[in-house]
């Protein structure tokens, strides 16, 4: 059986989540590998959310916020823009490939862009294979 990655999407409510919803109302299809949770602002994305996702079996984490300058909270995404690269540096030091954590800006009108990014990320992570952590877990979490 081919490897189907599990990707967690953490989307800001105002731009990116609305953009993902627009992909839905526009019936733009993308791979089902992404599963989305919502935060009010990408600045709420605590680095531990990403770590938590990776140890819970995610093969990738996609964080999306409003385009710079467009944040509903004026400047939250600038904080995200600084935070996530720092986290990625730590994660790569720990042997987690850079591509597994991705930060993208998606506006409320960019349904197509959301679908394209999900498609691209799914393909890249499928090529990369399971994350070290999710492979090591290798237990049925329901038996935990």
């Amino acid at each position, binding site marked *: 059986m081919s490897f189907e990655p599990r990707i967690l999407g953490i989307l800001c409510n105002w731009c990116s989540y609305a953009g993902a919803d627009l992909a*839905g109302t526009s019936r733009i299809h993308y791979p089902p590998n992404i*599963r989305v*949770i919502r935060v009010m602002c990408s600045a709420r994305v605590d680095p531990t959310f990403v770590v938590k996702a990776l140890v819970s079996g995610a093969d990738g984490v996609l964080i999306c916020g409003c385009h710079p300058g467009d944040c509903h909270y004026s400047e939250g995404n600038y904080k995200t823009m600084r935070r996530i690269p720092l986290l990625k540096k730590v994660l790569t030091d720990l042997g987690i490939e850079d591509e597994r954590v991705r930060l993208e800006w998606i506006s409320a009108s960019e349904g197509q862009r959301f679908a394209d990014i999900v498609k691209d990320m799914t393909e890249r992570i499928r090529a990369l294979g399971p994350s070290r952590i999710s492979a090591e877990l290798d237990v049925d979490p329901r038996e935990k």
Partner: protein
Amino acid sequence: MESRECKIGVYICNCGTNIAKVVDCEAVREYISELPQVAIARTYKYMCSNPGQELIIQDIKEQGLDRVVVAACSPRMHERTFRAALQTAGLNPYMFEMANIREQCSWVHDDPQAATEKAKALTQAAVFRVAYHEALEQMMVDMCPNTLVIGAGIAGLTAALELADAGQKVYLLDKQDHLGGNLARVDLTAPYLDSARDLLTERITRVKTSDNIELLLNSRLQELKGYVGNFSATLVSVDSDDTEENKAQKIEVGNVIVCTGYKEFPAERVTHFGYGKLPNVITSFDFEKMLRAGRIECKDGEIPNYVAIIHCVGSRSPEYHGYCSRVCCMTALKYVHEIKSAIPSCYVSDLYIDMHAFGKGHEDFYRRTSEVKTMFLMFGKGDHPIIRSAGPKDDCQMLIEVNEQLSGEVIEIPADLVILMVGMEAREDATETARLVNISQDKDGWFIESHPKLDPVATTTDGIYIAGTCVAPKDIPDTVAQARAAAGRILAKIAKGKIAVDAIYAEINEDSCSGCRICNELCPYSAIEFDDEKKRSHVLSVMCKACGACVAACPSGAIKGRHFTDQQMFAQIEGVLR
């Protein structure tokens, strides 16, 4: 995850066939009903319907549910609806979570098995999360009865009068030095050929004499702070730069209506019609100017014998704007009548792609226009007419070659004057306006409604309303309807006197706070204060907009983002990945 004692009701919506045709809702129900905290799991055809909501209310009352999950459409669609249902049943509205299995599942995936597995995960995540939800109390704040109306075109004038007539104070702001907006540039209106000036004059007079309306012309919004019911707006003169604070006027308002209108598509962007090169190729707005001046003439002052009107300039084209500008077809027909009435011998050709006559009275108007001997010529999208200067032997200024669709023939027609029906586009300052009042724009720059069908004049920011052509191209009746709707929404809120603000905000646990003050600088709303005596920070909850930036940044983990707590987020992450 530790197990929490709770009784969760889970409701999986079929949404007719919208969800059920891809997701096996019954399989989701079976899977979910086995989770230990789930007391009851049901599927239903339309959860948002009255019987659907009743189902939840009854189960809460009879089964003693203490938390509810609905797996259905986007929470942006119906979270409020279901929260209200919980409240009706006597349960705190925040003991609710939605799983988005329509917009982000059934509508975007076609493999039923994968979609069903994903729907299970999304619903499970909601169950795990809701187990950690806490009852939150909403705060009631005063509603300032004053309203700021931005833009004094037909929408702004109408909204301002609606509010002022009800006895409420209105600040009516416009960047220009006069009232009336784009409509003041128009002569007659379609389809009844009544004068735009007449429509405006009565309103302008009443606005100018109203005791409740303060006019602020030549002015713009510089800053908007606060939240619904309690905004503070800074207004400045259009010529002042941002540093001249002395000239700024501060006003307190409870709500804002944005009716900033449109700008016309710049015809010079379309090079193939020779606008700017051929002297007698003009835009519809150039023509309105002629009509208002009372003389239709060519550049050399001669009365035209032949006038050609070309539709969809800048509209319905992949190169410029993909959308239809809605008003141009009827405006073109209006020109036919105005030309025929001014110059009865004039020969008028109307070159169109499709004739959009969708509104009330529009088809009749189209028929009446055909009766006044207009030459209608249909051209194909992307196969535009070609205009060239006529030769010395021709009795006209220009010749237009059209590949006419209905006859299938290439036809050449004479023209002395060519009118390009330019569409509407978002104003250049729309982005700045959107940022100032914190609303979003769509891909074409139009402002985005809270819901395109069910909530067309509200936005995602509470207390900010939109009306007229800043939302999308529309005609006068639709614009006026929106303006009145926005004013009506605000009057209803003012009538209540108080307004409930979201119970979601950040809280600092003073026992864990180290007083490092990292959060103080981070907050874009200056909602975090430092207590110099206690050496601790605390959040002014009314000012907090719950972005969560401070929550994620606190090195001591002392800040709790209500309704987005670490525990809740972790539980959701675990649930979605299982």
